[in-house]
């Protein structure tokens, strides 16, 4: 991440969800995901989308993590049961150079079960149509942060105009290089799971906010990448 930030002027760091829940990680379990949020704050994440497993934390704990995050935790389609209120922020607008990029979050249907019925998951395609129309009045670049799987991401690109990039999760596909959907002019990216890789997408955005060029790769995080001293020091304090 530091290497890319040194090499590029405009960098966004995004996460496609299923990141906060402890699973079988003792430290994450013990802190109920707090160590993850603190690490992501340290790494300078720009946004994360809720995946179904993130809701296994329970809404009270999840809301605490959302308070602690120094980045927006997004979902445009998870609604509190019995209300018309979204659980999370639906989108965020980032100023990048002369442009404004909207990042819209979409969560998979399994989140409804994960939260024990406390939430309802709205159809992501319908939610995206609504929010894409809303943000396009302000932003000229539209990024979808999706925890729906690559197949669904492709469908979204085909059915909603104006999406420039979909950063995905859930299906754990390693898209190397990222897919280019020619009919919709949308880049679709996803990068495995368990932090084994990090994805790098390069976009050339023209004066109209459209993708004029694209590229990317998946970087496998092998042992040749030394531990970052700052991150090492952060984790050591928990031992």
């Amino acid at each position, binding site marked *: 991440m530091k290497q890319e930030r040194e090499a590029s002027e*405009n960098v966004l760091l995004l996460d496609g969800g299923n990141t906060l829940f402890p699973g079988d990680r003792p430290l994450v379990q013990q802190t109920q995901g707090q160590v993850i949020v603190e690490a992501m704050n340290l790494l300078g994440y720009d946004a994360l989308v809720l995946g179904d*497993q993130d809701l296994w934390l329970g809404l009270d704990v999840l809301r605490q993590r959302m308070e602690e995050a120094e980045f927006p935790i997004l979902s445009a389609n998870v609604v509190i049961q019995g209300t018309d209120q979204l659980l999370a922020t639906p989108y965020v607008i980032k100023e*990048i150079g002369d442009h404004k990029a909207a990042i819209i979050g979409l969560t998979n249907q399994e989140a409804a079960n994960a939260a024990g019925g406390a939430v309802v998951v709205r159809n992501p395609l319908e939610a995206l149509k609504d929010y894409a129309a809303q943000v396009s009045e302000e932003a000229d670049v539209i990024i979808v942060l999706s925890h729906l799987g690559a197949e669904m991401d492709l469908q979204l690109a085909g059915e909603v105009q104006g999406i420039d990039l979909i*950063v995905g999760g859930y299906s*754990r596909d390693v898209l190397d290089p990222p897919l280019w959907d020619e009919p919709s002019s949308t880049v679709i990216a996803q990068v495995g799971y368990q932090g084994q890789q*990090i994805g790098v997408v390069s976009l050339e*955005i023209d004066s109209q906010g459209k993708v004029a060029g694209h590229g990317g790769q998946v970087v496998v995080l092998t042992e040749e990448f030394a531990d970052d001293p700052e991150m090492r020091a952060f984790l050591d304090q928990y031992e």
Partner: protein
Amino acid sequence: MRRIKLVALVALAVVGLAFLGCGSPTPKRPLELTVLHTNDTLGFTEPCG
């Protein structure tokens, strides 16, 4: 005289609007954007089991 004042007022209004940028919008410069991304890390601060 009244007509001259009216013409002057309209001229001032047009000049004022031009200053306020009500003409063509300033073109945006193209940009290169790098997006780094992760997903499904399932608690990445510890090694997987």
